[in-house]
């Protein structure tokens, strides 16, 4: 377990830099996480991120791209536009959640 300093405070992260503590995240931090990986957050990004946060709170798991479409209602194609190349990992990183564990 490591910590890193973000938004002026210590944050717990795993070896790759994904947050490990759900409650250490807030929206100001998300903006900084997004900035670090070159994603500029628009209202559409925020909708996806808020869905991921709420879904994790409910299920205890990070939603896969499939679930973000099927349950969240955000088409996969749009996810690729918002979080280019690796949407599953990028959106979970910004949402302060672990990488999705599901295969699909």
């Amino acid at each position, binding site marked *: 377990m490591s*910590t890193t300093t973000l938004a002026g405070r210590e944050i717990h992260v795993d070896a790759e*830099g994904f947050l490990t503590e759900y409650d250490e995240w807030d929206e100001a931090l998300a903006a900084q996480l997004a900035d670090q990986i070159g994603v500029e957050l628009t209202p559409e990004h925020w909708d996806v991120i808020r869905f991921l946060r709420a879904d994790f709170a409910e299920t205890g798991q990070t939603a896969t791209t499939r*679930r973000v479409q099927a349950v969240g209602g955000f088409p*996969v194609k749009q996810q690729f536009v918002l979080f280019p190349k*690796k949407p599953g990992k990028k959106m979970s990183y910004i949402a302060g959640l672990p990488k999705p564990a599901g295969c*699909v």
Partner: protein
Amino acid sequence: MTETQPRIVPDFGDDTDTDRKLVLICSKGNLDMAYPGLVLANAALGEGIAVDMFFTFWGFDMITKDRQQRLRFSPVGNTAMHLPVGGRMPQWLSPFPGMTWVATKMMKKQIDDLGVPPVDEFLDQIVASGGRLWACKMSADMQGLTMEDLRDDVEGIITAADFMDLSEGAQTLFI
């Protein structure tokens, strides 16, 4: 023990231009054998890897409009098949009428329970993620099928020689 480090940012590989490419040859029309290709294609696309899927022989059923929702799973010849109540499926039982229907129904339910889409919807998602679908010329000719019979997002019916161009420099898997 926690240690403080200045900043850890995941490497999403955006700066390194990858030309990694995956080609999947889907040759089977059984429900259970359709999924390995679908799952791998979807995973690769989600990692920023280009994917082409080439459908040949029985794999054609995955992209044929009136067959892609009707793929079946048969226990016949599958010596590894388990029974839901435990133990192996007796081989003499598997060819009995209705067994394929039951096995297919069960497998579809298991797939659905995991939130994994049916074959046609899975291909929709793969295409939406940037995957490309191709059909084999010889299989089309053998089965008397044309582009009309295939999903609208199949890009073409191509020859074995075309496939060589398609798969140049790619990691290729035959399923």
